[in-house]
């Protein structure tokens, strides 16, 4: 109960619509269903929805057509004969340069990058957020301010120093290196998220645990963690979509045989050699977009909470 109410404040009243209806005289106000106002309202919303949906529709339709049909018809027409060949080709045998084993390699590379990056970045940031919320020390807020300001610095400014740093440590181009990079750049937003969440928990709990003799880690593991499942889910959604969609770090910090899916997708589609196979390209694009889309559709409101918490600072 306490958890959900604190989350609502983080979401800055996105869910507030239900509260609003409750006050005032009860009972439905009689209103015509088809009025001029409703036609304009739903008409505008419908047109906007169409603009947002068309690209998804075009992607799906194109990926199910054969190449001859694409050359004849237009991109909006539904497929006459549905074929799943482009999907199979995109997954298993599309070429980037000399490699012809399709997007599957990029997919597994991305999974290999995603899992440790999400775990490590959330672990580090949650502990930092907890320290900032409950165990402040002299100067802790200064470091936090630097971190938040750092979130606005373009990545391009910090990328080369990090390359040098990782090279000195001997992990440039390895998976460990990329995990560290994702942890670094996920840190500002996640630390903010966790700090705000832990601050919003009732302080009495923390004090009671202190009186009972619990220390830093004990309170974190046995009191804070069990209470903060929702915020961990929000953080996970943020990180899974963010890291999966990353392109820049993938290009800079990995070697060609361990490129993540986004980089490989770009190489497949924008390669200059050969005849362009638009259906394979669209199938590959859909495959790459599938993971964040599934996360988005499954998580629903939590995704909205995540980006709202990320966007509305303080």
């Amino acid at each position, binding site marked *: 109960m306490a958890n959900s109410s604190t989350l609502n404040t983080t979401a800055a009243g996105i869910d507030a619509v239900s509260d609003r209806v409750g006050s005032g005289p009860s009972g439905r106000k009689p209103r015509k269903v088809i009025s001029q106002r409703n036609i304009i309202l739903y008409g505008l919303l419908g047109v906007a929805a169409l*603009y*947002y949906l068309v690209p998804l529709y075009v992607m799906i339709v194109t990926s199910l057509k054969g190449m001859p049909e694409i050359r004849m018809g237009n991109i909006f027409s539904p497929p006459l004969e549905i074929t799943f060949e482009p999907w199979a080709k995109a997954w298993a045998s599309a070429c980037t340069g000399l490699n012809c084993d399709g997007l599957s390699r990029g997919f597994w590379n991305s999974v290999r990058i995603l899992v440790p990056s999400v775990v490590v970045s959330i672990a580090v940031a949650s502990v930092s957020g907890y320290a900032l919320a409950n165990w402040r020390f002299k100067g802790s807020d200064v*470091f*936090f301010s630097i971190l938040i300001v750092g979130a606005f610095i373009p990545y391009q400014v*910090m990328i080369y*120093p990090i390359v040098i740093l990782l090279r000195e440590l001997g992990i440039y181009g390895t998976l460990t290196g990329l995990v560290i990079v994702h942890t670094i750049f996920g840190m500002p937003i996640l630390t903010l998220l966790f700090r705000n969440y832990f601050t919003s928990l009732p302080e009495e709990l923390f004090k009671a645990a202190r009186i009972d003799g619990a*220390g*830093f880690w004990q309170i974190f593991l046995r009191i804070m963690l069990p209470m903060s499942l929702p915020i961990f889910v929000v953080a996970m959604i943020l990180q899974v979509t963010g890291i999966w969609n990353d392109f820049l770090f993938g*290009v*800079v910090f990995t070697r060609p045989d361990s490129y993540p899916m986004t980089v490989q997708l770009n190489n497949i589609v924008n390669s200059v050699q050969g005849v362009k196979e638009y259906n394979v390209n669209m199938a590959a694009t859909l495959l790459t977009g599938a993971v964040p889309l599934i996360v988005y559709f499954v998580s629903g409101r939590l995704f909205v909470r995540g980006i709202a918490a990320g966007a509305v600072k303080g």
Partner: protein
Amino acid sequence: MSTRAEAPGPTHASQTHASPAKANPARSVARRPNQLFRNLNSKIASIPMILVAVCVFLGGTLWTVVYSFTNSKLLPRFSFVGLDQYYRLWDAPRWVISIQNLAIYGILSLIFSLAIGFLLAALMDQKIRFENTFRTIFLYPFALSFIVTGLVWQWILNPEYGVQSIVRSLGWADFTFDPLYDPSIVIYGVLIAGLWQGTGLVMCLMLAGLRGIDEDIWKASRVDGIPMWRTYLFIVIPMMRPVFITTLVIIASGIVKVYDLVVAQTSGGPGIASEVPAKYVYDYMFQAQNLGQGFAASTMMLLTVAIIVVPWAYLEFGGKKRG
């Protein structure tokens, strides 16, 4: 002051507690190690955060700025050449085009995403049915990467099969809408894709802002017989100033970073017509082996962000601390 000299004992002790440093030197010496190791676990747990903040964010940024004044080529070398790299940067046609593109893309993207985002949010706020469905539709592009966005719109704007050919087949035989192959309008093609991806987020932030407005304001304006559009324009929007400013800063700092979208959609082409600063930095750092140019260009990007963020941070956080 005088009371302290006269009264020893408990009163004294409580006063030293309030100002420990000066009153009793012996005691403050005894307390110092205690101070350092207080909260030790918390400090140990914060080491990653401190390292990231100081070494990467602060140190890395300073390092790049300092080395932007050197003539580093393949490897960073510390041979100081003053503003030479910057003169060369602003003489390069590619950089000037990058900045122009960023300005056009940035300004239009700000205007349109704020306008469309607010309009959609206002429509969504009319107690409509299927609100969740509409929100899901408007926001899903935001879950997709810029690479996916760029590739989809590259396909839709394809002159042979896409929008242009469809309008032509409907009867307008000489209709031309070919943004990705026309250097003079290519940046607008990127803009369409960028807006498709990003307006959902703006809509969500604006909707949160609208929901934060007191219902009584609406009732009052209805009682006074003020038309709805005027209430929005003269009452609600001024009240939502903080939301607008926060959104503006978020979009603006995202615009400066725009990179993947251009790489996927146009690769900077045709020619160099759709280059952007972030791509300039990447190409010079990792492909042209001209680090000095890369550092100078990234420092210019930093400057751009600073111009946007510093006034906002000052208003937002500097004011709050004092108030």
